[in-house]
C-alpha cells in the first residue's frame, strides 16, 4: 500500500512528473549512448593500432626501441621461439620480423619508410597485412626480391605493380646495403599514413640484404579477441620475462608500446566522467526543485499524516519511494531508448570520414560502431539511481519536519 500511495502520488501532477522523468530519461540515455560511442571508438582504435604491427605483446633486444637499427637485433630466435611457444595462450598467434628504417626510391622519388621483413604465413595471423592486399598479391615465403607496398606510396611514386623499387639501409657490417625489389602487390590501410609508412618483404630477403644471418628485430604476439585493458597481456609478459634473460630481452605489452594511445583512452574515460557529472548536476537540481515544489504543495497532507501518528522516518521513506519510482521509470525508458539506439547505430556505424583527416593521427576509425558494455549500462543506472535518491533526502527531510499544527493552519 505504501508503494501504491507513492505511485499514485507521482501522478498527481503528471506534467511535473513527465518533465522530471524526461530529465532522467535523457540523462540515462545520453550516458549509455555516450559510453557506447566512446567504447566503440576505443575498441576500434585499439584494434587498429594493434593490427598495425603492434600486436598485444612485442619482444625486442634491449635498446632496439630507443634505436631501431640492425645492431640491436636478437640473435637467438630459437630461444625466443621456445619461450613463446610454451606460453602461448589459446588462439593466439605470433610472428618474427626484421624491422628497420630504410629509404625506398625509384627514378623519380625517394622517401623514408619502415622496412619490414615478414614470414608471410605467420604474419597474416598477427597483423592487418594478410587481409589488406587489394591489388596484385600477398607475399609467399619462397618469394625473392619481391615487395609489398601501400597504395598511397604506389600513387606517390607514380609506379605500378611489376615495377621495381630500390631499398637502401644500413646493414650489420655498417655498410649501406641496397637491393632492388619488384612490386607484387599493394595494400590498403585504415589510415593513409600507414600506407606510406610500411613496405614488406620476406623475412629471408630482409635478413640476407641486411647481413643479419638469422637475426630478427622483433617478435609480436597477437591474442584472439578484443583487448581493452592489457591485463591478460601483463600476465603473459610476466611468464615470458621469466624465460628470457632481461639483460638482453625486453618484453612489452601494448599499453607500454603505445603510451600515447593509453593516454588517449584515459581521456575518453574522463569525458565519460565529466558527462556523468553534467548529467548528475542537471538532474540533481531538477529533482530537488520539483520534489520540493511537490512537498510544499502537499504540506497539509504531511501534517495530517503526522497527526495520525505517522513517524518522520516513514514520511521520509514515503517521499524517497516516490523518487525511486520516478527514477526507476525514467531509467527503464532511458535504458530501452539508449540500448536500441546503440544497437541500431552499431549496425550502420557513424561515418566520421568528414573529420577523418583531423583525427587520423590518433588511429581513430573513420566509422564508429557504438558498443554496449554491461558495466557501462550498470554504472549509468547506478549513478542516476543512487544520486537521484541521495538528492531526494533533502526534500524528504523537509516533508518530515512539517508539524501538524503548522500544516493544518494552512487551511
Amino acid at each position: 500500500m505504501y508503494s501504491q500511495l507513492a505511485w499514485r502520488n507521482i501522478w498527481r501532477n503528471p506534467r511535473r512528473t513527465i518533465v522530471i522523468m524526461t530529465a532522467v530519461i535523457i540523462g540515462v540515455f545520453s550516458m549509455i549512448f555516450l559510453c557506447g560511442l566512446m567504447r566503440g571508438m576505443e575498441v576500434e582504435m585499439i584494434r587498429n593500432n594493434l593490427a598495425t604491427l603492434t600486436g598485444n605483446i612485442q619482444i625486442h633486444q634491449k635498446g632496439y626501441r630507443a634505436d631501431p637499427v640492425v645492431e640491436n637485433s636478437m640473435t637467438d630466435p630459437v630461444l625466443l621461439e621456445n619461450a613463446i611457444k610454451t606460453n602461448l595462450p589459446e588462439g593466439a598467434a605470433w610472428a618474427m620480423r626484421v624491422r628497420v628504417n630504410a629509404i625506398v626510391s625509384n627514378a623519380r622519388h625517394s622517401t623514408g619508410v619502415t622496412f619490414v621483413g615478414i614470414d608471410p604465413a605467420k604474419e597474416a595471423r598477427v597483423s592487418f597485412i594478410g587481409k589488406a592486399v587489394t591489388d596484385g598479391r600477398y607475399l609467399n615465403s619462397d618469394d625473392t626480391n619481391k615487395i609489398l607496398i601501400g597504395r598511397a606510396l604506389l600513387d606517390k611514386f607514380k609506379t605500378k605493380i611489376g615495377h621495381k623499387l630500390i631499398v637502401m639501409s644500413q646493414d650489420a657490417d655498417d655498410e649501406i646495403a641496397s637491393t632492388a625489389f619488384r612490386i607484387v602487390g599493394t595494400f590498403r590501410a585504415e589510415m593513409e599514413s600507414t600506407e606510406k609508412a610500411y613496405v614488406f618483404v620476406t623475412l629471408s630477403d630482409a635478413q640476407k640484404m641486411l647481413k643479419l644471418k638469422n637475426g630478427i628485430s622483433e617478435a609480436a604476439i597477437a591474442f584472439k579477441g578484443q583487448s581493452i585493458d592489457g591485463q591478460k597481456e601483463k600476465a603473459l609478459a610476466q611468464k615470458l620475462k621469466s624465460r628470457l634473460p632481461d639483460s638482453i630481452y625486453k618484453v612489452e605489452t601494448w599499453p607500454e608500446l603505445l603510451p600515447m594511445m593509453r593516454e588517449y583512452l584515459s581521456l575518453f574515460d574522463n569525458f565519460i566522467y565529466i558527462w556523468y557529472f553534467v548529467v548528475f548536476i542537471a538532474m540533481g537540481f531538477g529533482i530537488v526543485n520539483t520534489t520540493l515544489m511537490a512537498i510544499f504543495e502537499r504540506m497539509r497532507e504531511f501534517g495530517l499524516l503526522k497527526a495520525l501518528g505517522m513517524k518522520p522516518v516513514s514520511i521520509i521513506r514515503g517521499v524517497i519511494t516516490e523518487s525511486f519510482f520516478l527514477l526507476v521509470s525514467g531509467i527503464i525508458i532511458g535504458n530501452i531508448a539508449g540500448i536500441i539506439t546503440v544497437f541500431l547505430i552499431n549496425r550502420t556505424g557513424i561515418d566520421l570520414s568528414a573529420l577523418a583527416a583531423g583525427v587520423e593521427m590518433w588511429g581513430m576509425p573513420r566509422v564508429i560502431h557504438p558498443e554496449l558494455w554491461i558495466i557501462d549500462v550498470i554504472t549509468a543506472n547506478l549513478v542516476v539511481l543512487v544520486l537521484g535518491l541521495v538528492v531526494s533526502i533533502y526534500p524528504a527531510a523537509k516533508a518530515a519536519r512539517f508539524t501538524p499544527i503548522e500544516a493544518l493552519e494552512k487551511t
Partner: protein
Amino acid sequence: MNNIVELEKIKKTYLQGKVDIPAINNVSLSIKKGGFVAIAGPSGSGKTTLLNIIGGLDQPDSGTVRVDGEKFETLTPSRLAELRLFKIGFVFQAYNLIPVLSAAENVEFVMLLQGIPKKERLRKAHAILDDVGLSGKYNRRPAELSGGQQQRVAVARAIVSNPSIVLADEPTANLDSKTGQGLLELMKTMNKEKKVTFVFSTHDKMVMDYAGRLVRLRDGSIFDDQSK
C-alpha cells in the same frame, strides 16, 4: 481511573510579533470515558489550541496533560506519535483525507501504520464504512465524495481501531446544517454503540445541543461546564 483526559492548569501563549496572545489560560478539565463532550466558544476562544494540546499535536507552556493515564511531558516524540496512532482519533474541519487514496484505503491507512494485516484491514475498513453509511462507496476517491461523506470517512477512520478518544475540531463547520446534523447523529450513535469517547469543538448552537456535556470557552478560559 475513569478519566480518559485530565488537564491540569494548562497555559498556552502565542507570541505574535512582540505581543503575547494568551490562547489557553489556566484550564483544568477532566473527561470521563464514554463521554460526548462539546467544547464551545466563539472563534479565537482557544478551542483548536485546546484540542491540539489534548491530542499531543501542541505542547502547553505549563500544566500537565494526561491521556489514558499517560503523562505527555514524559513521552518522547516517537512515543507520542504512537500514542496518537493507537489511542487518539482525529477529525479535522476539512482536508481530512489523503486525496490519492479511496475511502476504504484512507480508513485502511491508519491500520497499516498500526501494523494490522491486510485481510483484517480490509474487513474492518468495509465494516466501519458500512456503519457510517457509506457501503458501496468504498472505492470512491475523496474528490468523488460530498463534504458530508468525506467527514463520515474521517469519522470512520478515527474510530476504526477503537481509540480511547476521538478529537473532532469543528467537524461540521464546512457542512450545511442538515448534513452537519447527520454527522453528529452518526457520532452520537458511534459513541453509544462503540463506547468511543468524543470531544468536539463548535461555535454552532445547534451542534451544542447534541452534547452530553458542554464546556464553554471564552478568551482561553472555561466559564461554563454543564452535563445534561
